[in-house]
């Protein structure tokens, strides 16, 4: 019974494993620790931001500012470290604080002015990117020994793959996200607001506090993704992570979360992120696709995943329970 909620997740997982198997048959090299390590490292910032996005979407909202906030934090950190000589750790704290406050402010506007999250976070997206431009339009390298130290922190897996610090951090964020979503009151409030905001209010859910908290969390995680991005590239650049919000939304949705709110799993998002990474890797391994075919194939694969997922869900729902879907 309870598993009906996990159905989309299992479907996604099965599809991922199938897809991976297909890839490996075609390119045996893809079954290597290198590729697995890369999947984690290369998608770390995307995954971390996607955790925040999962909460936002489960609550029935959306956060378009994610990519811009990543860009903004990466620039801010680079400028603080390189121009002002701030220690990276301190810079991280400053950036994370600003990102969190930024998210909370958007949440407050969404709740108190009762305007759609889409618009508020769109304004947030412009604002954050604009602030990054105003700080500097140059790309700024970070050459601090602390970064070098952090880069050295990786676990070399047999076969040459690396489990890097940021890859590990993403996994930790996901685990934390799962705990928060399912084992805290805050998590249940998020689902409640997404299910029906009015009912949630009548049932005594602290809607204002929770809404602000959700966007603050998303802001914080976007900031953290920015930190990870700055570690990933050892630089800050105002144009980085453009359009990442759409990638995170796609990852969240592929993971089985409904954009209408109330339904979804953080763990599903993880699979969604990895699936997106897999699509990218497959295309790189293939290496014959022109620029345009790349886009077409990405679109087709996206469609294939989503259609397969729906098919699996519908089929097993038909087999599993007597529930009749409403028209």
């Amino acid at each position: 019974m309870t598993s009906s909620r996990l159905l989309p997740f299992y479907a996604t997982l099965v599809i991922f494993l199938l897809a991976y198997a297909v890839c490996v048959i075609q390119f045996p090299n893809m079954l290597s620790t290198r590729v697995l390590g890369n999947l984690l490292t290369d998608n770390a910032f995307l995954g971390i931001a996607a955790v925040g996005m999962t909460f936002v979407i489960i609550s029935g909202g959306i956060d378009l500012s994610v990519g811009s906030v990543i860009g903004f934090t990466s620039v801010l950190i680079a400028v603080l470290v390189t121009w002002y000589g701030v220690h990276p750790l301190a810079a991280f704290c400053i950036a994370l604080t600003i990102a969190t406050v930024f998210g909370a402010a958007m949440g407050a506007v969404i709740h108190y002015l009762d305007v759609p999250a889409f618009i508020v976070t769109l304004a947030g997206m412009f604002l954050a990117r604009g602030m990054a431009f105003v700080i500097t339009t140059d790309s700024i390298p970070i050459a601090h020994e602390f970064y070098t130290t952090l880069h050295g922190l990786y676990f070399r897996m047999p076969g040459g793959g690396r489990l890097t610090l940021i890859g590990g951090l993403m996994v930790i964020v996901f685990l934390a996200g799962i705990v928060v979503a399912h084992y805290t009151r805050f998590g249940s409030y998020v689902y409640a607001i997404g299910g029906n905001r009015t009912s949630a209010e009548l049932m005594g859910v602290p809607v204002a506090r929770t809404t602000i908290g959700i966007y603050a969390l998303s802001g914080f995680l976007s900031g953290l993704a920015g930190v990870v991005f700055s570690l990933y590239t050892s630089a800050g650049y105002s144009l980085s992570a453009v359009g990442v919000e759409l990638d995170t939304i796609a990852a969240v949705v592929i993971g089985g979360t409904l954009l209408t709110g109330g339904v979804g799993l953080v763990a599903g998002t993880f699979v969604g992120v990895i699936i997106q990474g897999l699509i990218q890797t497959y295309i790189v391994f293939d290496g014959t696709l022109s620029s345009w075919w790349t886009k077409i194939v990405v679109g087709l694969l996206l469609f294939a995943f989503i259609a397969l997922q729906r098919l699996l869900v519908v089929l097993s729902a038909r087999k599993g329970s007597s529930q009749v879907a409403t028209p």
Partner: protein
Amino acid sequence: MSEPDLLLNATDIRKSFLGLKALDGIDFSVRKGEIHALLGENGAGKSTLIKVLTGVHKADSGAIELNGQAVAVRDPMHAQQLGIGTVYQEVNLLPNLAVAENLYIGRQPRRFGLVDTRTMQKQAKALLAQYDIEIDVGAQLSSFSIAVQQLVAIARAVDMSGSVLILDEPTASLDSHEVELLFGVMRKLRDRGLGIVFITHFLDQVYAVSDRITVLRNGKLVGTRQTSDLTKVDLVSMMLGRTLAAATEHGRRAAPQPSERKISFSDFGRARSVAPFDLTISAGEVVGVAGLLGSGRTETARLLFGIDLPDRGTITVDGKPVRIASPRDAIRLGFGLCPEDRKADGIIGDLSVRENIALALQARRGWLRRMSTREQTELADRFVKALDIRTTDIEKPVKLLSGGNQQKVILARWLATQPRFLILDEPTRGIDVGAHAEIIELINRLCDEGLGLLVISSEIEEIVAYSTRVRVLRDRVHAGELAGAEISTDNIMRAIAAEHGAAR
């Protein structure tokens, strides 16, 4: 100045919505250890009063005292903290959460700071057992019928009420067994010293449990009486402002002349939904459907109306075979269905009363042949008058109407299509006595004109009152039929109870 055992005392409450005086100087109090029935016609202001008392709405003026101290209830959460547990009129739960989470949200038991799901589920099971519900509390609330959801809402409110429990039409769509259980719980709470506010349109229930009665009419206080001092007739005239002529007892309809105009479903069924059954409805006939919660009544209706598709079976209309693959097909044949869950499947909340009434007729005509605004207005005006729908004007969004009036709007939507076969799933849910009588009268008149009717109701008296035949469902099987003189409350009860199923 206040009496010592006064729990909640509201004085001179006023509230208006855009010029409409929904509450006009209401005094209302709840004592320790009493069940206080709050009565009135649809749109009298009962739900609004509850919402003011629990902080959903801010009163324009007036004072509220709790245990002798003035309070300003900020919001429902604050009301809960003050020990007021409430079940609002529409089921206001979270369908996407598990039953247990619905019961305990905001106060989940915790271990090491994390929610302790196992303990929570154990407690939830125990809590629901008091109402004879044994379900998987880990399952999503939406997988259960409206009635179960209503019971969950009640269980939650009861569990949270420290001193005052408010129930706004909790018994609509509950069957008599559940109602008895609920009354048992209410009496127990009363004996523990809680004050209970109880809103209902079933006068029998009022007399069964309540100690005092307050009646509202058009937002004004009519009066508060001891239940024992007030006869039913007086109560009705307090509510309506007039006496109700003969409407309280309605004679059973005689079976109509056998007619060629009939609709037959044969060997109709759907796996895991309803076992195959035969059903024929002639023009002028009223078939009542009785059964326990979850016996498959709503599912039968969905099947007949083409919402769920049958795996097997055939339909003939006036002897000709037809196919129904969607509600549209059904409507084209002259069918109509008032669904059980009016919030989810009935009203189009943001659209106006006028549009809601015209909708089905317009859909049948097709989008090209638009009904002019004047035509819609005439239609709406006609039904607003015919069904006595209380609304300031027909351009008001239907979601702002009181619950009973919304129900009438949906009924009007179907009557406007002049159907030949109408399925009503819990049609009188939340409709007041006056309107109830009027609707039954209307149904009778329509049947005289040749309408065939299938009425699903949990209120057996109601079924007895107007059915020419009664279909009894048990465990998703059409288990029997009563006709003519066999139809009586006792017989129906017996048929329902025979070989009590394993489903519950």
